[in-house]
């Protein structure tokens, strides 16, 4: 029995954010159990917010002492802290925008907030994991919590169907991912990422054939999770069916965490066989961008359109991955942060407009928002400009930085096609602007209740964030470049 292995206090400190989130979730469940059904559940929402903010502070504090923890199960470095902050921020914005939505749908139960906390904790584990088992368990915790959140409105047939589809394809993807991990374990003999990296880089390392097989299988698993091209059929249905705050959460949180592990596994471990999987990722990136943009052109439902646009944005991040360089990783990190903010913001506006039972979810239901609620319309305009890639917004700078990285590694055709794709994307985002500003108010915007407090905070923090990333990106960019440089060394 190895010597007393009580984890050193610094190791527990490095795992603090996830501990806070898990304890917060448990606390909410205890409170939920004690209070009957009479008390309003907003109090539990505030508890979850407190836990999220504490975790955010902890995540920033933990950055002070980077390094492995719990016998190198966990590795806290710049990369991990960056994604931890993004994931927790998405959690905070989701909770803010779901107060009003839940009480309107009558599903204002404490469990929703507990599940958000558990899902964010799972994503935190995924992002800091330095061990394949940790990646797998973190992925499962966040996925199961998100499956249940998607199906929370049990009597709404669409929510059920979206939860079912999300569950089936999620577990299908996890099975592929596991099979890839099995072969990786078979090839290198260990499941610890740093150890695998050494075995792979060694001269007599495992055969590229076996690594290629493992990479292919894991690529299928990751492809599903980030909803990139060949595996994106589930995303539109699930995004449309699930309740809107949950869709906002799903499109930003788990996707960013999935990209984090995708980057960690592919950029550090499968680097030697890089020229094998790079053409595949090239094709995936182009396919996602094209399918996402062209399919979104014909949509009339806002959520479905934003789902296709999120597939296209997954394509852009894949372009950064395809660049296979430090700048590429930094570009992907920056883009995911900007993407998370603008997407959660856009869905928050949809959550505000969609009314009880998500009646008004069509693009035409946004008619006349500009004249009825100019502030909300201005926020949505900022998000749409950022999604299009108009300068002075985070989206533009992210896209610019990605294509700079791509051009640096000679992906000239991918850059040109990617940019043309974003020009095509401008059309369907413009349709929303047109409807919002240039049409007379329809029935949806006529009887809109005033903007609730929670949603107002969510909207304006994400709008400010998008503008900040656009106008003064150097602070965050410099942090991303620093952590990408010593990522995986």
């Amino acid at each position, binding site marked *: *029995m190895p010597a*007393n*292995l*009580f984890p050193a206090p610094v190791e527990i400190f490095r795992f603090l954010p996830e501990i806070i989130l*898990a304890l917060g979730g*448990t606390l909410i*469940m*205890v409170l*939920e*159990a*004690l209070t009957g059904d009479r008390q309003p559940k907003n109090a539990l929402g505030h508890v979850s917010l407190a836990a999220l903010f504490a975790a955010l502070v902890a995540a920033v504090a933990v950055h002070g002492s980077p390094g492995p923890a719990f016998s190198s199960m966990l590795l806290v470095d710049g990369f991990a802290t960056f994604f931890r902050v993004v994931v927790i921020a998405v959690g905070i914005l989701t909770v803010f925008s779901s107060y009003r939505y839940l009480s309107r749908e009558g599903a204002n139960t404490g469990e929703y907030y507990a599940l958000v906390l558990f899902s964010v904790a799972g994503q935190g584990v995924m992002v800091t994991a330095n061990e394949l088992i940790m990646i797998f368990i973190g992925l499962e915790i966040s996925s199961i919590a998100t499956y249940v959140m998607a199906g929370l409105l049990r009597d709404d047939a669409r929510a059920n169907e979206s939860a079912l589809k999300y569950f089936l394809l999620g577990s299908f993807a996890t099975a592929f991912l596991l099979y890839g991990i099995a072969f990786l374990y078979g090839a290198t003999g260990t499941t610890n990422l740093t150890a695998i990296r050494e075995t792979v880089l060694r001269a007599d390392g495992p055969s590229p054939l076996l690594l290629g097989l493992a990479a292919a299988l894991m690529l299928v698993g990751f492809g599903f999770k980030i909803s990139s091209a060949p595996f994106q059929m589930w995303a539109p249905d699930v995004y449309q069916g699930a309740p809107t705050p949950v869709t906002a959460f799903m499109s930003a949180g788990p996707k960013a965490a999935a990209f984090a592990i995708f980057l960690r596994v592919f950029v550090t471990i499968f680097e030697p066989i890089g020229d094998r999987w790079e053409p595949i990722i090239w094709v995936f990136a182009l396919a996602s961008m094209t399918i996402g943009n062209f399919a979104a052109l014909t949509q009339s439902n806002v959520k479905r359109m934003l789902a296709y646009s999120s597939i296209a944005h997954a394509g852009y991040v894949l372009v950064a991955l395809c660049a296979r360089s430090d700048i590429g990783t930094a570009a992907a990190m920056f883009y995911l942060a900007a993407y998370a903010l603008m997407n959660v913001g856009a869905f928050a506006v949809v959550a505000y407009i969609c009314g009880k039972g998500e009646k008004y979810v069509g693009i035409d239901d946004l008619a006349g928002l500009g004249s009825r609620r100019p502030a909300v319309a201005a926020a949505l305009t900022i998000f749409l400009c950022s999604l299009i890639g108009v300068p002075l917004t985070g989206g533009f700078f992210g896209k610019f930085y990605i294509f700079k990285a791509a051009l640096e590694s000679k992906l000239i055709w991918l850059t040109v096609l990617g940019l043309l794709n974003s020009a095509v994307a401008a059309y369907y985002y413009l349709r929303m602007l047109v409807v919002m500003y240039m049409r007379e108010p329809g029935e949806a915007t006529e009887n809109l209740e005033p903007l609730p407090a929670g949603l107002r905070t969510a909207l304006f923090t994400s709008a400010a964030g998008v503008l900040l990333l656009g106008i003064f990106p150097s602070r965050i960019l410099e942090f991303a470049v620093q952590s990408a440089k010593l990522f995986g060394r």
Partner: protein
Amino acid sequence: MPEGYLPLFLFLIVAMIFPVVALGFAKLLRPSLPSGAKLEAYECGIKAASNARGRYTVRFYIVAILFVIFDVETIFLFPWAVRNQALGWFGVAEIAVFLLILIVGYVWAYRKGAFEWV
């Protein structure tokens, strides 16, 4: 094949063969002239009103789920039980944390009425 398990497998094989052989012979030997009345589900002589397999109610299902989850919890305790002297207080602390979290789940499920059998 660890030698200890050979008898176990022999037992398994015998257990599988015996019912097959017994039912097989019975089927071959007995006369079989099936008729409508014979095939009906026997409900103490009363005319069978509906399909033999009635619908179960949901609460059976919830108990089954919680059984599986707490079954997994007990399986986690097996390795600990085997090595608890070597693990000592450190092991006890780990298991305490593990059980505490699951007890919260149990209390929550209880308060939510998952176990009521009404």
